[in-house]
């Protein structure tokens, strides 16, 4: 794996060590402080850096979705109709699916991405939490005693009574 990485690095390497600022005089009206720092460019072009950035992008995607989802859920309202239900359902299902597929998602990133994975999963869990909160505020979670009321069996009657107005 490391050799492969090495290869890749070879492929894309841009040898900026050779560019030596000291060798050349600055062009006229060039102020060195105004130019973007060359080592930053070097950082950006750094493959490792790119990969981490990509992996963090991936890991943070669910968190980035969160405000959007929040807004969507706010807009969906608490009424129970087909669209809000579909939205909540999607919100609940997608993170679950994504969590299951975490490994697959991070497969293409070949560095050690445990941290990112954890952040990724946590982000999705946050989304699930949001969905559950939404379900709760919509009243879809059976967390109250009244939700189980329909299943309470009527008590058995122990005595039996009959009679009425005395006819004689």
């Amino acid at each position, binding site marked *: 794996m490391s050799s492969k990485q090495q290869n890749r690095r070879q492929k894309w390497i841009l040898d900026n060590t050779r560019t030596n600022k000291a060798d050349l005089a600055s062009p006229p009206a060039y102020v060195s402080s105004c130019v973007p720092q060359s080592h930053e460019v070097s950082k950006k072009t750094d493959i490792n850096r790119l990969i981490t950035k990509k992996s963090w992008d991936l890991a943070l995607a669910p968190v980035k979705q969160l405000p959007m989802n929040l807004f969507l859920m706010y807009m969906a309202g608490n009424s*129970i109709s087909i669209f809000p239900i579909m939205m909540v359902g999607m919100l609940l299902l997608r993170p679950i699916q994504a969590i299951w597929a975490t490994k697959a998602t991070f497969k293409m990133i070949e560095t050690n991405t445990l941290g990112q994975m954890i952040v990724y999963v946590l982000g999705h869990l946050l989304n699930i939490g949001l969905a559950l909160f939404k379900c709760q505020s*919509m*009243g*879809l*979670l*059976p*967390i*109250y*005693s*009244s*939700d189980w*009321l*329909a299943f*309470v*069996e*009527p*008590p*058995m*009657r*122990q*005595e*039996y*009574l*009959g*009679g*009425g*107005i*005395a*006819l*004689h």
Partner: protein
Amino acid sequence: MANIRSICIITINLTLLSCLSHALYEDQVGKFDWKKSYVGKVKFAEFDARKLVVGTEENVVAALSSKTGNVLWRQVMEDPSEQNIELLKIEKDIITVSGNENLWTVRSWDVGTGNLITEWIISVDKVVLYKFDVKDNNLYVVAHDGSMLNVRVFDVQTGLVKSSLQIPFVATNNQCILVQTYYACLVHNVVNYVQLKDNSKVSTIPLQSSENAKISTYKSVTPAIIITTSSVNSEIVFFNGDNHQKHITPVMPNAIGVIDSGTPLIFQLEGTKNPSNLLIKSTIVTNGEELTREFEYPHGLGKPELAAAQCIDHVCNLLLSSADNALLLVRFPEAKVMWTREEALSKIVATEFLELPVSELDASIENEFKGGNVISMFLHRITTQCRQLSNLVFGSQFLANTGLVRDDFGLHKIIVVATKSGKLFGIDTLTGSLAWTYRLPNVKPFKMLDSEKMLLFVQRTARYAPLPAQCTLLAEDSITGNGIIIQFDPITGYSEKSIIRLNYKIRQALLLPNDDENHVKPLVVYSDKGDAFIYPESANTAIATHASHTYLYTVDVNKNTLNGHNLYREGENIKTTLSWTVNLGPSKLVALSAKSPIERVHSQGRVLPDRSVYYKYVNPNLLAVATIADDPIHKNVLSIYLIDGVTGFVAYSTSHKRAKGPIHLVHSENWLVYSFFSERFRRTEVVAAELYEGSTQSNSTVFSSLAISQLPHVETSSYILPAFPLTLAVSLTERGITNKFLFFALNNGVVEIPWLLLQPRFANVACGPEESCIPYMPEVPLPNEAYINYNQTLERIQGIAVAPARLESTSHVLVYGLDLFYTRVAPSKTFDLLKEDFDHILIILVLVGLVIVSFITKYFASQKMLKQAWK
């Protein structure tokens, strides 16, 4: 999942808020309801052209079509318990006199339309027997005080006194009749009569034998009386001025006179050798020429009597009224029964809804495993399923032989009805037609508070296929006052044992909840001596284990006490012992309501807006009792008690000052609704009281009245009902999931009011649309859409019988009184049925269309693909 309930509630609530109850669509009229109009037992009947005008014991004047027997118009006068019709005569108009001992109302009605023409009153101070008759537009009012006749002659139209005269006439009052202008009295062995005019003298008709003699009016145009000396022998005496003339031959006691094209005829009814046939005899008065016709008297009717007759061009209509209040019209020379009316149904004293048996085919499938070997069972299965398939394809003509077959939704039932005259009826709920009738001789209902009731119990339903259903009716012998028991099959009306006349008086009866080995629920009859008897006797051992859990209560209306009894088994007998007493003392017990034994309570609590549960106090043994006490300060005080029938524990009591009857109680689940008239505010008030256990359930598995851990918490609220209720009932559904409707019988019909509208709101809990709660309104709205009888008039409603259908959403409702009205109600709409206007055709068309379109597009798509491939 949890929210499904709230969704239901919200939708229900929305519908509630939108129209407060669900109404019928106009195209549903008559689809599942029917109404039958009755007039009551006929007291007076007269023909007029094509109409038959009757005055009945229900204080009703009505015109029936003589062709069909249908009611053309009907005018209901005052309540028959206060006023009675005393005279009905057709002069130019119909003249009726109705009233009580010192006040009479004289009314004249238009024959054609039934409009009132005049109305005036006669009020007198002296209470003696009064006799009325009309002759030539004069109303003769005769007061006879034993020695003197005080006669007043009024103008019928205006009520002006034309003349008044006094005629000395000595006779006891009870055997006197007024026939047109003749007043006749039976005195010892002679009949004295006098014509009501100035200076007329009393004449005498001597009698051959005076024992058991009776005199009655001879219904005819000419003034005449019938003197009956024995049950088959009587004679007609015609009056003519101061003279009289006897008819040549003796006649039957209920002979009737009619004029056919100028010839006076006498009609009589006679029995024949064939017990199912009757003989009509017409005799020409002048020459004694006779014409007789025999006809088959309809089976199941009581002893007939001639009530009225009419002849037009030698075709005569005879109106027969039977002992069981039925009316028959017989066309004379043909001797054909034109129509019959069962007027007994105007006085219903017991009702019960029964499930029908399964069809023969379904029953045969149930019998599948009773066959012998495997092959025969297989063949049986194949043949029955083939028949089922053919039924499905060709319609159910195979089942048409009886028609009384159970349906899937339990919407087709049979209503068993017992009437005051002792006649039982089986009525089909789908059509309202009579499935069977059964007449019980010498039977009368029990007196219960202000109504009359018989006790009808269902001992076995039609569910136990080879065994027939079994009902038991308890009533009173009209001669001895002892109890009678009759067991019958409610589906066919067939009684195996016929009437059992008991040698004791019935105090109460109770149907035990457990079946014996024949699936019969034993009936315990409690006698006035305090003994208990079991029917059927064979069930004695079967109930041994249940006896100790069975309790009986009796309410003594005379002493205003309630007593509880324990049942226990001693040897072969069931004994009772007094277990509790409640003494309501000087207050008068006016109403009692127990819960329906078949009621099921689905929800054990009420959900509060914070989604916690407030548990209901559902005590199936709770009795609601209403008493009215005379109070020197507050006039009348109404007290309502909720008493546990097992222990006698008074769970709740409340009182209303200056309240007046009529009191109506309805008791269901954990609540009670009662209505009364508030004299203070001069309006009808309805109070709803609800009992709760609290936020915990003390015992969720068994309920025992003996174990009281906490007192029920009572919530009440009061409403104004802008009407005068006649009775009150509540809907009943199979599993108790559906919302409840209250039925208020008013003078213009029955109104359904959702219980949610009356349910007490908690004081500290918000109430609004978000909480699916209808805000409190002090006046109960009665929208027109809530009338379940829509524009059909229901007169003098006496009761509402309710039964569940197998469909949870629906209950059967039978409203009885002078009219009989049946309908089905669905308090939460028919949520378990497709809507009636569900468009099957549209759905099929759309689906077919989509399939076709998809095929077409598929074809075109492949074409296009081909083209693209070639490019």
